[in-house]
């Protein structure tokens, strides 16, 4: 395997949900790549398709949803049409996922040690003692004090932040190449979120692990990620390095999102708001999905804009009228 193969390469991914009311194009032609050790922030509002993108990569899209097109290359291997057996070998060992609500990922009636040892033995033929030791070390790594005792506890005996750490520890058990984290700190308090971000950042830097951080919170991504993809209604509307996208956004939607973050505004002044709301996936506007809310829209926007790079080659945008200047 060549060293410059990205950990993950997604090309023109399409995930559609075939419902009675019509076809909902939750993900509609998404392409991005994550290099080794890179942290990618996938930002969007509810319904923008960011979570479905994560689920498509790890192969967890349930009917009526289906990956309808595109390719997903993981370490150079096409896993789009991979067998369920192959996906099961990858999931948990090479690709791991962390969900928003740790209470849903942990089995409430099993002790933490049972769950962790099971996860170790699912992929590696090791005895119980080795598995136990690895679980203990993983808990220690994510900053849980006295891991040996805590392993004997049940999930409900942990606080929310501790539970999320356990979920992260389980994701780390097999030292995966890629972790997909779906809003893992949204339900947590600010100080606990800080602790989790600290642990995750440390692990990426030390291990060269790649990370996709799915969130709606631009502020978290700005501090953590190297690159960012902004999603709107199933498409990536802008992507580039953090500094490019946050400091000099090209797409009017990104512009609006950044403008509506309170700390970016003068106190007491009205926030720059984006009018209207995100469209329903079943009833998408013609052409650029953002045009009904866009201040720059004109007749041209009734066609779907292609990807262009008006400023720098790795700063891509899908818009006919990108912003030229710096952010407001």
């Amino acid at each position, binding site marked *: 395997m060549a060293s410059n193969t990205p950990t993950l390469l997604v090309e023109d991914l399409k995930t559609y949900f075939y419902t009675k009311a019509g076809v909902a194009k939750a993900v509609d032609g998404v392409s991005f790549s994550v290099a080794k050790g890179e942290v990618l922030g996938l930002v969007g*509002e*509810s319904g923008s398709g960011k979570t479905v993108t994560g689920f498509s990569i790890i192969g967890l899209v349930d009917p009526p949803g289906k990956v309808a097109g595109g390719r997903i290359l993981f370490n150079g291997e096409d896993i789009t049409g991979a067998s369920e057996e192959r996906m099961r070998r990858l999931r948990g060992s090479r690709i791991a996922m962390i969900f928003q609500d740790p209470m849903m990922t942990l089995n409430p009636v099993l002790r933490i040690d049972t769950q962790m040892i099971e996860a170790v033995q699912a992929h590696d033929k090791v005895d119980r003692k080795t598995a136990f030791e690895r679980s203990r070390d993983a808990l220690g790594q994510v900053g849980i004090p006295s891991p040996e005792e805590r392993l004997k506890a049940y999930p409900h005996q942990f*606080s*929310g*932040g*501790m539970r999320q750490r356990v979920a992260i520890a389980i994701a780390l058990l097999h030292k995966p190449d890629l972790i997909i984290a779906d809003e893992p700190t949204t339900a947590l*308090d*600010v*100080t*606990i*979120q*800080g*602790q989790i*971000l*600290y642990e995750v*950042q440390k692990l990426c830097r030390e291990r060269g692990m790649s990370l996709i951080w799915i969130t*709606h*919170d*631009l*502020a*978290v991504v*700005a*501090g*953590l990620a190297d690159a960012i993809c902004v999603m709107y209604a199933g498409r990536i509307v802008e992507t580039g390095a*953090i*500094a490019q996208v*946050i400091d000099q956004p090209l797409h009017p939607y990104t512009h*609006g*999102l*950044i*403008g*509506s*973050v*309170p*700390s*970016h*505004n003068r*106190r*007491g002044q*009205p*926030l*720059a*708001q*984006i*009018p209207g*709301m*995100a469209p329903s996936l079943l009833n998408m506007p013609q052409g650029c999905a953002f045009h009904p809310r866009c201040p720059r829209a004109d007749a041209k926007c009734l066609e779907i804009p292609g990807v262009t790079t008006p400023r720098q080659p790795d700063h891509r945008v899908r818009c006919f009228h990108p912003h030229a200047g710096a952010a407001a």
Partner: protein
Amino acid sequence: MTAMIELESVSKRFMKRLDVAEKLFNLMGGDVREQTVHAVDKVSLAIAEGEVVGLVGESGCGKSTLGRVIAGIHPSSDGTVRFKGHDIEKMSHAEAKEWALQVQMIFQDPMSSLNPRLRVRDIIGEAPAFHGLVKSNELDDYVDDMMLRVGLDPSFRRRFPHQFSGGQRQRIGIARALAVKPAFLVCDEAIAALDVSIQAQVINLFMRLRAELGLTYLFISHDLGVVEHLSERVVIMYLGRVVEIAGTEELFARPNHPYTVALLGEVPRIDRRGQTFVPIKGEIPSPINPPSGCHFHPRCPHAMERCRVEQPMLREIAPGRYSACHLNDQS
């Protein structure tokens, strides 16, 4: 300026009563005690008319309980609450009714605070009709007025809550609160459940309403960015106690209490790039069994022997600035 709401060492305790099994166990010589949660512990606070105060704290710090005591949803266990100078426990019936209407609350989750089986018209119109604020033949116009005021299309008045998006539902909740012509709104995490672009719309709505109607706000939130943007004064709570009160700019520029310092340091900000996160140690302790002395001492980087024994009082350290920390006695 008269104070809209004045709290004087208000406490709110919740008791977990013993169930039958535990009582039996005690009869047989066991030792199970009733557990008390000190959700709000001797909080004194005054909010002036027309002021916007932000109340910040982590989950379990008692900020919502305090908001509910102020809105009259929970009675306080101890202390005095005065509304426009009148002690609420000594109010006449008419005064108490006036208080109940003047202070309204807006909740975090608009789906669980709106009756799913009522039409929007009834959700907004029920309270003003019941309290005789509008004549029944003018009610429809009144409801239309309220809907326009919060940016909803009045032609939606026969719809049910589930037919609206999250941001619109929150607007219904705001319209319902405004319908009884309140002077004071307690907003409990009112925008936490909304998407970023919708959050900005609702924040702008709150600010416009304040300018139009001269409202007083208590803005309860864990989102410091929102509080910084909206409020004039910020109150920081930790485990049931107020640890710091200061003007917004003062607080964000020069936080005094170690907890405030830590809290501000944790906030991810959009203008902070490639940040190295440095966490506060430890977890929020349980309010059933809070640490002795200063509640923050087990997590505090400056904790000394005195902090373990003696509870620091909230004292004025500069005009209009209050902080509860022993460190202020040293310098």
